[in-house]
């Protein structure tokens, strides 16, 4: 327990602080599955941090596969046991799926073996017809298969020996069968047995794995997630070939039964972090989780914060980089992004390219991005402050040039800046929405009309066009979309504070923002940790040291194994020295 003190302080961030104030948490208490201790449970009592982690680890249950027992309890649907009578089951299912009005559900009655009635049901379009025909219907209806049941009852025999799909499961409630069918599987019900057999028959159209749309890089992998959860997990697993990579599934959303996958490395991620993530997900009751973005709102620490506290990435390689730091990734079905927790503000400024490139280049890029943050957030505000309060700071020639440009402009600087910023935001927003086929128009409108014509018409001064364009460039250079967005809003704050109080106002706004920023947490980890609070010196904070010098994982995630590689990871250097010493000795 030599490092007890330090681990305790770190764990104190990881444990959720004040359960009584959190609505989510209240739900979590109400809906947490029996048995498994939640993070909140483990936070109580006078145990040390490490003890808590261990207890959480011990209680942690890992069930791979789609139909894990950890599905969220739903408030509207009570679980009903399946009946012995086929007719009652059939009418329950028909009722549940609104059959026959609902044309998507297919219910196929069968007569198997010695005239035993049965039926299968699946969702048309969600399931693969070939699999149903070849692996379920054909063997089921083959009379020769039922000659010798080998002492088993018909249900178990069919379960063990007839169905040929690669995944198969029993369900004793209607709801489990229905939920499974909703994901594209096929359920079989046999007369006289109060169980369903669930067969894996998922087969629906999906997009191919494509290039990243938002997080493009010049060098490095060019794969991005698509909307299929299985594919996305496979993309991660293909890079991270490790048996410790654990995937847990959760179902969220009463209306859409969204599948949520939580990925982590079992021997690396801190159990109390994993427990906290699972606790927050389990404790969610809502009717619709559309995507990871919606999930992010439900599980983030402070929904009112202007700073993002969860990274959303579309790159499997970036996900893997974070997983191997001992963090947790959350993927949602139908959304080509993974959420990563916990993160610090520096993670938002890093891209996978920093690591792919040589360390000098990567470091340079990071400084460029830091400059981009400065420009994107402060430049228009500084311009307003300089031109209205601190004219003595502008070089005389530039001052005269600005004054000359502004001579015929009828608006005050603040109005000019707001006008230009708004038109820039309009161009951005319109650019996303404009139909691709007439996409070139936006360039013409933006560049010609707003830029040139506005200057010629003396609506804005040319200097301001440069400022706004520069700011826009800075904003696009920020690698994270969410962070770029918060910079867009902060920019407005700085513009107004600069217009009202000059540099003094900007300094005030900066201090308020920073104070607010350092008080934010991402799953218990302070957003600015490594800087405030200071943790162990990082080799990958702003200056990225060579990859072989990055021996330890980030401190703030408190991984179970801190060491990434030995102190000397380039062993060949030793053998080189040995060799040169040896040859030197021979020469002597």
């Amino acid at each position, binding site marked *: 327990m030599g490092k007890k003190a330090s681990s305790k302080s770190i764990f104190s961030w990881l444990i959720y602080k004040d359960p009584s104030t959190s609505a989510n948490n209240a739900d979590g208490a109400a809906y947490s599955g029996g048995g498994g201790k939640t993070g909140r449970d483990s936070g109580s009592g006078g145990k040390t941090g490490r003890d808590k982690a261990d207890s959480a680890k011990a209680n942690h249950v890992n069930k791979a596969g789609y139909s894990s027992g950890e599905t969220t309890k739903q408030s509207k649907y009570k679980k009903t046991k399946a009946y012995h009578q086929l007719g009652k089951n059939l009418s329950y299912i028909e009722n549940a799926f609104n059959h026959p009005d609902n044309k998507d559900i297919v219910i196929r009655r069968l007569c198997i073996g010695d005239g035993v009635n049965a039926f299968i049901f699946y969702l048309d379009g969600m399931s693969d017809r070939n699999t149903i025909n070849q692996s379920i219907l054909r063997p089921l209806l083959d009379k020769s298969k039922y000659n010798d049941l080998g002492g088993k009852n018909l249900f178990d025999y069919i379960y063990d020996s007839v169905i040929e799909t690669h995944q198969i499961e029993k369900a004793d409630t209607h709801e489990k069968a229905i939920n499974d069918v909703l994901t594209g599987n096929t359920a079989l019900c046999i007369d006289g047995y109060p169980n369903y057999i669930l067969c894996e028959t998922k087969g629906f159209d999906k997009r191919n794995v494509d290039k990243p749309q938002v997080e493009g890089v010049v060098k490095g992998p060019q794969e991005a997630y698509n909307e299929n959860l299985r594919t996305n997990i496979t993309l991660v697993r293909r890079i991270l070939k490790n048996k410790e990579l654990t995937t847990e599934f959760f179902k969220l959303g009463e209306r859409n039964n969204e599948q949520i996958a939580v990925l982590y490395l079992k021997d690396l991620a801190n159990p109390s972090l994993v427990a906290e993530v699972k606790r927050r997900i389990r404790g969610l009751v809502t009717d619709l989780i559309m995507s990871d973005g919606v999930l992010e709102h439900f599980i983030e620490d402070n929904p009112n914060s202007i700073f993002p506290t969860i990274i959303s990435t579309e790159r499997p390689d970036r996900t893997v980089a974070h997983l191997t730091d001992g963090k947790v990734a959350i993927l949602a079905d139908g959304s080509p992004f993974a959420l990563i927790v916990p993160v610090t503000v520096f993670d938002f400024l890093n891209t996978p390219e920093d690591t792919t490139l040589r360390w000098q280049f990567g470091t340079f890029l990071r400084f460029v991005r830091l400059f981009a943050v400065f420009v994107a957030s402060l430049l228009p505000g500084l311009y307003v402050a300089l*031109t209205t309060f601190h004219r003595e700071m502008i070089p005389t*020639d530039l001052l005269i040039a600005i004054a000359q440009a*502004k001579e015929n402009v009828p608006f005050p600087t603040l109005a000019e800046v707001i006008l230009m910023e708004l038109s820039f935001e309009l161009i951005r927003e319109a650019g996303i929405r404009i139909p691709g086929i007439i996409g070139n128009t936006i360039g013409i409108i933006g560049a010609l009309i707003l830029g040139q014509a506005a200057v010629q018409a003396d609506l804005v001064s040319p200097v301001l066009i440069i400022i706004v364009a520069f700011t826009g460039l800075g904003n696009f250079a920020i690698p994270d979309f969410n962070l770029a967005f918060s910079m867009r809003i902060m920019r407005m704050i700085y513009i107004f504070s600069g*217009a009202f109080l000059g540099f003094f106002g900007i300094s005030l706004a900066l201090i308020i923002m920073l104070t607010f920023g350092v008080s934010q947490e991402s799953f218990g980890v302070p957003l600015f940790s490594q800087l405030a609070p200071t943790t162990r010196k990082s080799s990958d904070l702003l200056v990225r040291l060579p990859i072989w010098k990055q021996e330890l994982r980030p401190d703030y995630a408190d991984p179970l194994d801190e060491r990434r590689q030995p102190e000397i990871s380039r062993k060949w250097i030793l053998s080189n020295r040995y060799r040169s010493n040896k040859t030197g000795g021979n020469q002597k």
Partner: protein
Amino acid sequence: MPEKILALVLMSVISASLLAGCFDAREIDDEVYAISVGVDKGSEGRLRLTIQYPTYTGPGGADSAGGASGNENKKAQSNSLVHTIEAPTMLEAIDMLNTSISRRVSLMHAKWVIFSEEYAREDIAGHIAGLERYNETRPSMSIVVVRGSAEEFIEANESSIGGSLSKSIELLLTQSKFTSLFPMVEFMDFHTAMISSYKCPIALYGGINDFDFENNTTKLDGRKGIIPGETPRSSVSKRELSGMAVFHTGRMIGYLDAYETAAYLMIKGKYRSGMMSVPDKSFSDKNIIFDVHKSRPTKIKAYFKDGKPVIDVTVGLEAEIYAIQSDVKYEKLELTYELEDQIKSFLLDSIKHTIKKSQKELEADIFGFGENMAGNFFTIEEWEAFNWLSQYPDVIINPSLNLKIRRTGTIFQSYEKIDRKEGDKD
């Protein structure tokens, strides 16, 4: 709770904006920025203030004709305007200018304040102190004294190379780095020297040149004599700077000419570089041309000997031969040493002359030796009672010079001159 926080935020925002105020916010084009300010003696005991500011008629003065025809301006030069007004004081004059100029006159970007010699010889301390207190004046602007009238000097101040007047002034002032014929003096230097008990203020010395070669009697031999306005030259802009004006508190008492200023800069250790021609010993009609620049900071030792203040000054310079007009091979080591001694004695004479002038003629410690001497006193009261500035004329000052010829330009050795026969042609 949220109401409390909201109230707190509102209170701090409102009180901050009320206390710190956005009242001094002003649009950039609501002001004109005077870059030259001139002060002359006006009639009836008034002060005549002249300002010059760039107009906003667009680069290159494309549509300056329209602006220039208005009755606001007195005289349009390229893209700047000059206004003159008479008033009791400088700041009041600037205020009064706004009775005719439609934009507020700001001194934020003033590059230089120009006093006429006539006015400076009376007393400008009051104006300097007034400017010091005014929040718009920059401590980095220069103080210039002109022979003749400041108004004429400003009117003669045109930017002939490029369109930017402020750039032409800024760069003219920095030419001191290359010629060392006038110093760089900022407002703050002047002001601190004015109120100090151990040095006397100096200012740039300027003049208006009438480009009259015929009547120009300036003698350049012996490195004496150039004063502003009398440089034998012809050019576009009539204003010129050379030498420096010497003050006793706020009153001008004399000047150093261009070459004395060079010696002054050497003693101060601020001599950046400058060309110098020294007569060749072997040929009286030929010169050797040097570039001289600082090699080491000046060392000053100030102490008392037999109850008398003594100052030892060691100036460190180095020289580079740029031209040898005769065919004597001065690059040879023994000749180089001889040459070194020659330049040394030449420059040391100049330094001694300047020190002597400051002691006997000007009676003003322009070098700031007092700053070193003050170290010999334990309290400021003792120092003030000593009254350095009145003691200065009798101080023993021992200048010495370390000078080495380090380089010979881009040629190692002089080449043989080929004698041509009469009538030979290229």
